[in-house]
């Protein structure tokens, strides 16, 4: 095989890969690994303030597919994912989808507002706290991202940097699914088992 032909083959393969998986700087997409409906548990509700001081409850989003992202401004991997989430918000918001970012910076809005302005984040961001993190199983690593179905149940969780394609596949599956009823846990009680029904890695559960 000539060098030119080999180059053409490699370039074609690369472009095909980009078409399928997106040219993300990180790992290729895996098939979405959504929990079966019967194994999903209600996402715990919370009430947090957005940048305008308005109270945001997860239960406000019932009926929508929600990508709930725990992040912080000091978190490099989070900054890779945020532009993807902005894309998802743009692409799917009219289909009953929303991204909600929960920032976990100690400095709260003093850290978050400049960052949100710098990056031009187009989805809603709230500032979280220990209590919020505890409800979701004690978030230790950032980013930790939950995908919540239209019934308000946790369908998937990703701890650490994931691929854009994997999120995209999961979101599309969730958008296509019909709601069944049930939903987000009202009130502030921590779900039985302490992890919100989410299978977090063992080292993260009870690590704090």
């Amino acid at each position, binding site marked *: 095989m000539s060098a030119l032909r080999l180059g053409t083959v490699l370039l074609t393969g690369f472009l095909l890969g980009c078409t399928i998986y997106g040219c993300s700087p990180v790992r290729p997409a895996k098939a979405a690994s959504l929990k079966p409906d019967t194994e999903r548990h209600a996402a715990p509700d919370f009430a947090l303030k957005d940048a305008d001081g308005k109270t945001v409850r997860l239960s406000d989003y019932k009926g929508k597919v929600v990508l709930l992202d725990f992040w912080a401004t*000091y978190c*490099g*991997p989070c900054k890779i994912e945020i532009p993807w989430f902005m894309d998802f918000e743009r692409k799917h918001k009219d289909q009953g989808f929303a991204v909600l970012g929960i920032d*976990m910076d100690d400095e709260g809005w003093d850290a978050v507002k400049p960052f949100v302005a710098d990056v031009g984040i187009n989805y809603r961001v709230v500032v979280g706290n*220990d209590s919020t993190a505890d409800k979701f199983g004690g978030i*230790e690593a*950032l980013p930790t991202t939950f995908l919540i179905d239209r019934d308000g149940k946790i369908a998937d969780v990703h701890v650490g940097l994931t691929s854009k394609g994997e999120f995209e596949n999961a979101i599309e599956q969730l958008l296509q699914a019909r709601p069944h009823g049930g939903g987000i846990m009202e009130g502030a009680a921590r779900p039985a088992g302490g992890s919100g029904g989410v299978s977090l890695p063992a080292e993260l559960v009870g690590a*704090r």
Partner: protein
Amino acid sequence: MWAQGKQYLSAEASQKLVAKRGASAEAKIAVSIQPGFHVNSNHPSDDYLIPLSLKWESGGALESDGPTVFPKPQLEKYEFSDKPLSVFTGDFDLLAKFKVPAAASQGPGIMLGKLRYQACNTNSCFPPKTVEVRLSYQIQ
């Protein structure tokens, strides 16, 4: 905000500090970062990143005397960053500088320091944490 929980770094004074009244003294602080993790250096590559910092509580016979001396950081490229980041990994020493007032009491004591850091691995970051550093000293 975050509970301290799991630590990714440990730090301790390498040996007891023996110093004379009215003199300067230096203490080596041995830092060890768990394999697979890194912490931002004292001068991170990005304004949003949290630097490694060591602060000593006041009180006792020693007074902090100038900034802590950090080793030269490593510039490491990670999957999640476009540019290399200024970080520390593995084991290294910090050098803390003190002066002993001429009127200081002779005898033993303990200085307490707080080493604040923020760790990441290759695909996750962890909330900023603080470890306590205990420095035993003897004033002569």
